[in-house]
């Protein structure tokens, strides 16, 4: 009935860890996918807007540059480029004249790591370079090349990443909180169940029951468990009753219900130790029914049984609380008297027993019969100092009594030396 220990060397995951893992996985997957797709879609939308914006800048720049290109005024072209490109998100701009010779260029300074990141993002998400013809009266008089700067996109991507990280963190925290709550809701009833099972296996407290819980499945489990406990309790009680009855049967005589020889001897041993310790006297009476064999032969076993039962009843009725009467076998009975003051007490009780046999015994087939007893008395510590010897002395005394036509006989001290 020991609690089973895990056999595998690897520790088994707890319910809490499993729940937490499952929660975390779902939360991270959901948040990650949704944020990622949202960020990607927005990034694409933003990049198309940025491209559109770049084209718009190119068109308006081409229009603004028109006159300067017509007049071949390179300084004015450079000035206009610088003026517009510094306020807009332009990485570089070049104006070529009709012959394809560069008139002016503008390059935005790249600042630090962020600038390089912006460049990278611009490379990834924006068109490399857009070309816009500069038109004067329907004729192309030059070309404007523009490439965009990814500042807004970079900021958005960075913000998106931050947002993603933050939402992942929050969902992880939420998952931890949720799993802890769920774990508490699940483990408490399970712990109750486990406590009860443990208590029963260790302390045999079959009367304990698992308390009800608000989770339907676990409540059902608890109810089933309680029903099992009910059956176990009933079974246990029945087992105890059977044990007790078996123990009684082993130490008592089935016919008269008196303790048998084994019990008598063990009690006698205990009583003798007690008497030795307390310096008190006790007596053993050995009883035998006179002519019991004749009754049995002539009137049948049922009559014999009735006689034995009657003797047992009468003996029990005469004795004190501390005394013990036992059927040793056949028609032999033994009585343990403790404590007694002197041999007169034992003789007096023996006389009472002999007197009690004068009343007739009713037989089951009808009719009645009287029987008589022969009683041998042995005293402790006068006649013997061990149980076997004491019983033997009483037995011998009983034979003396029987030879003298019944009655009672006290064991003689001389005979105690012989065995």
């Amino acid at each position, binding site marked *: 009935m020991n609690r089973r220990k895990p056999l595998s060397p690897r520790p088994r995951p707890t319910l809490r860890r499993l729940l937490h893992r499952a929660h975390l996985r779902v939360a991270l997957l959901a948040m990650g996918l949704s944020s990622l797709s949202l960020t990607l879609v927005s990034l694409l939308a933003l990049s198309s807007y940025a491209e559109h914006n770049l084209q718009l800048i190119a068109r308006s720049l081409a229009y603004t540059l028109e006159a*300067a290109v017509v*007049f071949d*005024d390179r300084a*004015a072209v450079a*000035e206009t480029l610088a003026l517009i490109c510094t306020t807009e998100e332009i990485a570089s701009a070049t104006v070529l004249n009709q012959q394809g010779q560069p008139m002016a260029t503008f390059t935005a300074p790249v600042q630090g790591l962020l600038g390089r990141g912006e460049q990278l993002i611009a490379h990834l998400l924006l068109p490399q370079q857009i070309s816009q013809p500069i038109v*004067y009266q329907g004729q192309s008089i030059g070309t404007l090349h523009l490439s965009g700067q990814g500042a807004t996109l970079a900021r958005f991507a960075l913000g998106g990443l931050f947002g993603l990280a933050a939402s992942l963190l929050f969902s992880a925290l939420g998952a931890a909180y949720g799993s802890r709550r769920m774990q508490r809701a699940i483990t408490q009833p399970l712990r109750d169940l486990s406590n009860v099972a443990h208590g029963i296996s260790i302390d045999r407290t079959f009367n304990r029951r698992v308390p009800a819980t608000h989770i339907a499945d676990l409540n059902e489990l608890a109810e089933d468990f309680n029903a099992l406990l009910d059956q176990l309790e009933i079974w246990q009680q029945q087992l105890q009753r059977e044990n007790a009855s078996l123990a009684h049967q082993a130490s008592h005589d089935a016919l008269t219900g008196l303790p048998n020889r084994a019990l008598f001897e063990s009690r006698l041993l205990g009583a003798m130790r007690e008497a030795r310790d307390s310096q008190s006297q006790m007596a053993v009476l050995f009883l035998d029914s006179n002519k019991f064999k004749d009754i049995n032969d002539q009137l049948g076993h049922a009559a014999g049984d009735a006689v034995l039962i009657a003797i047992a009843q009468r003996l029990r009725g005469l004795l004190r609380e501390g005394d013990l009467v036992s059927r040793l076998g056949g028609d032999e009975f033994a009585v343990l008297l403790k404590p007694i003051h002197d041999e007169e007490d034992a003789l007096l009780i023996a006389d009472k027993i002999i007197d009690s046999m004068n009343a007739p015994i009713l037989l089951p087939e009808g009719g009645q019969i009287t029987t008589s007893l022969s009683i041998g008395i042995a005293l402790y510590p006068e006649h013997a100092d061990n149980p076997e010897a004491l019983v033997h002395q009483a037995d011998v005394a009983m034979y003396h009594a029987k030879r003298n036509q019944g009655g009672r006989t006290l064991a003689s001290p001389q005979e105690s030396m012989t065995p």
Partner: protein
Amino acid sequence: MSRRSPRHANLTALLLGILLLAPAPGPLAESEASNSATLRAAKVAKVVHGILGYTRWPQQPATVRLCIIAPTEYADLLWQEHALEAPLPVETTRLLVDSPRLESDCEAVYLGVLPDEQRQALYARLLGRPILSISETTSECSEGSLFCLGIADEHVAFRVNLDSVARSGLRIHPNVLQLARRSGAQP
């Protein structure tokens, strides 16, 4: 055919020789100076055509008649066809400063170097008329010319007299005015 081909080859060789040899004679400095002058003339032509292109007359003519008055230094290329002003053909003529046709036959006037009195008289005649005046020297902007050129070594800038522009009734594209102001700022 076989008999004629040697003559053809000879002719070709001759032409090729002339073409190759042509730039060879003449001192280098002279050619550089003439190159520089030609470059300036080209620039002047470009600026003048640019201004003409960005100008709108009250009655838009089918052809802009550009009258060149007085001795000019860089007006030589104004007679040539210009690549850019296809929608508005320019017809260049040379007039005397006291020509009566000035007011009636010119949409634009290119002024060379003139004595002060003649110049002032001319500006008085042009005042308030829808005639675009471009003078070759910078100082004249204050005297009544709508535009005046500032010809530096390799650079041709121009200034604008906004007052005269307003009086003339011509509409000049703001981009040009912007360029002019900037050009005017650096003489």
